[in-house]
């Protein structure tokens, strides 16, 4: 397992370099002089010269990338043009909000999704199964920002149960978590259901029945346990979905967070902040995939073997 972990971590380095290179290049692809895109309008010549010296902007691109990467690894993500603060400070302020929202939404989609999927599979082709399948279809096709708006309309504006926006109280988290969660629940439930139905047909399940194991115990202790493997695969592959959902939903609910920060900065063309946010989101996606792989290996002895 330790060897597996080390190998898996080493594999992350080229991925991280590739992603950071793309993000680094953003500013070079944007029309206009990169220096102007990195500085406030009306900056003096001295400030420009200082910027050029600090980032080696007069040197070759690979050198610039090395300098940028070095600074970034030390936590120096540059200065926000509009907000006039270090990008790292902005991210430090916003990241906790996104982390809480993202992890709650992930937990909600996983737990509710698995439970719904398992129920649907156990009552396959019954009315409950059909209802769940319909909800899954709706949950995976409706645009999440619209769902968010409808939730606000119903629960915040009409019923007044939850705040319309912001992040001042815990109750402000309920609607955003639900909104992101619905898409995740649909995905997890669909995979759980399909996997359980497929696994229930396997020989070893027949054998469990032949051993006299009660059906409920077979369903929960064996079939569901197996079905969790593809669920974890999907979750680790698509942990980004949750993050993507978080980006959108933060904006809809006007919550502080990386997503809101990113979209506001995109609209304001505040490139240092855009780069910082994208970098953090990319790191989150990469780490999410890593965690998924580790959980998977912990659950499946065969996988541990092949990856050793």
């Amino acid at each position: 397992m330790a060897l597996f972990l080390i190998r898996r971590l080493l594999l992350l380095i080229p991925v991280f370099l590739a992603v950071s290179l793309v993000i680094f290049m953003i500013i070079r692809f944007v029309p206009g002089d990169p220096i102007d895109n990195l500085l406030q309008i009306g900056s003096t010549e001295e400030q420009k010269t200082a910027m050029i010296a600090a980032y080696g902007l007069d040197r070759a691109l690979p050198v610039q990338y090395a300098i940028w990467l070095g600074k970034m690894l030390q936590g120096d993500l540059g200065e926000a043009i509009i907000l006039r603060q270090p990008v790292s400070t902005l991210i430090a302020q916003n990241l906790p909000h996104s982390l809480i929202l993202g992890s709650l939404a992930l937990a909600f989609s996983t737990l509710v999704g698995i439970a719904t999927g398992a129920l649907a599979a156990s009552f396959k082709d019954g009315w409950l199964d059909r209802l769940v399948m319909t909800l899954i279809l709706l949950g995976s096709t409706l645009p999440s920002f619209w769902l968010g708006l409808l939730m606000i309309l119903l629960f915040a504006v009409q019923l007044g149960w939850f705040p319309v926006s912001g992040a001042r109280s815990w109750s402000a988290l309920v609607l955003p978590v639900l909104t992101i969660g619905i898409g995740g629940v649909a995905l997890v439930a669909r995979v759980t259901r399909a996997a359980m139905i497929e696994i229930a047909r396997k020989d070893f399940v027949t054998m469990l029945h032949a051993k006299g194991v009660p059906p409920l115990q077979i369903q929960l202790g064996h079939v569901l346990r197996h079905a969790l493997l593809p669920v974890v695969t999907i979750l680790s592959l698509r942990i980004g979905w949750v993050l993507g959902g978080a980006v959108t939903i933060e904006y809809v609910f006007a919550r502080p967070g990386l997503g809101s920060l990113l979209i506001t900065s995109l609209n304001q063309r505040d490139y240092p902040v855009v780069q910082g946010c994208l970098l953090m989101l990319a790191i989150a996606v990469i780490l999410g995939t890593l965690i998924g792989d580790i959980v998977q290996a912990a659950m499946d002895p065969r996988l541990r073997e092949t990856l050793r």
Partner: protein
Amino acid sequence: MALLDLSDVTVSIGVLTPLDRIAFSIEAGEIVGVVGESGSGKSLTAMAVMGLLPLIGGRITSGAVRFADVELNRLPERDYRALRGRRIALISQNPMTSLDPIRRVGEQIDQVSMMHLGLGAERARLRSVDMMRQLRIPEADVVHGNYPHQLSGGMKQRIVIAMALAADPELIVADEPTTALDVTIQAQIIQIMVEMARRKNVALMLITHDMGVVAQACDRVVVLYAGRVAETGSVERIFAAPRHPYTKSLIGCIPVEGLPPGGLKGIDGVVPGVANYPTGCRFHPRCSLAQDRCKIEAPLLRALEEGAAACHLAGDPP
């Protein structure tokens, strides 16, 4: 009183009737071979005895399966479940797929004695390891902690056998237990199974398509053809004087030492599918002795001086 008795068991899956009035019995401690080509209904008979037909969408539509005087097909599912693994155990066809791939093999044996005999984890473990030793599994206490993918096919089948024996059953249904294994290991596994059955006085319903195995291992034989019983009888009588032409051809398929080249006979044609069974005797299209009567009238299973046969011509000794 027989330990297991099937009387005219008919099984339906949807509109099809793959088993038609199956009748035979097994005494306590007896080893009975159930033979036939693939498609003859052997595995379905096993599922019917285990009460697992609902898993494949099938059910017993008439007849009765009696086990130690209990009519199994009328038993509530709860009580049936208490019998499974406890008094009637299954050894399945493919050891590669019969074990849960993400659980240690030992746990899977322990599960049976913990569930049915109420043993604690540690005692169940000791019992399983002891059983594994009896089945000549080397380093049994290490293997107990292995996962299925770490074991060879032969070892896995020994694990499945240990699982079947774990709660001291009275009857073991072994559904082609060696088909999926290498030829070299097949004999070993059969030998081990028969040895254990004899030592523990467990009745064994040994499903196979190999008459050679039957000759070596069994006391009695049930020959199935296309969902019906063709012939039953003691191994001695069946091999010495088979009454059903199908039994005769099955025996003709066993390779014997000193056979001249080309002397091994196969049976022409194949078992018909369940959707298009022929009328009359289902074997008549492949039977060299078939008469007009065989094409129209299905022969009943009639008692002989020893055993029974379902053939219009079985009255006349061959």
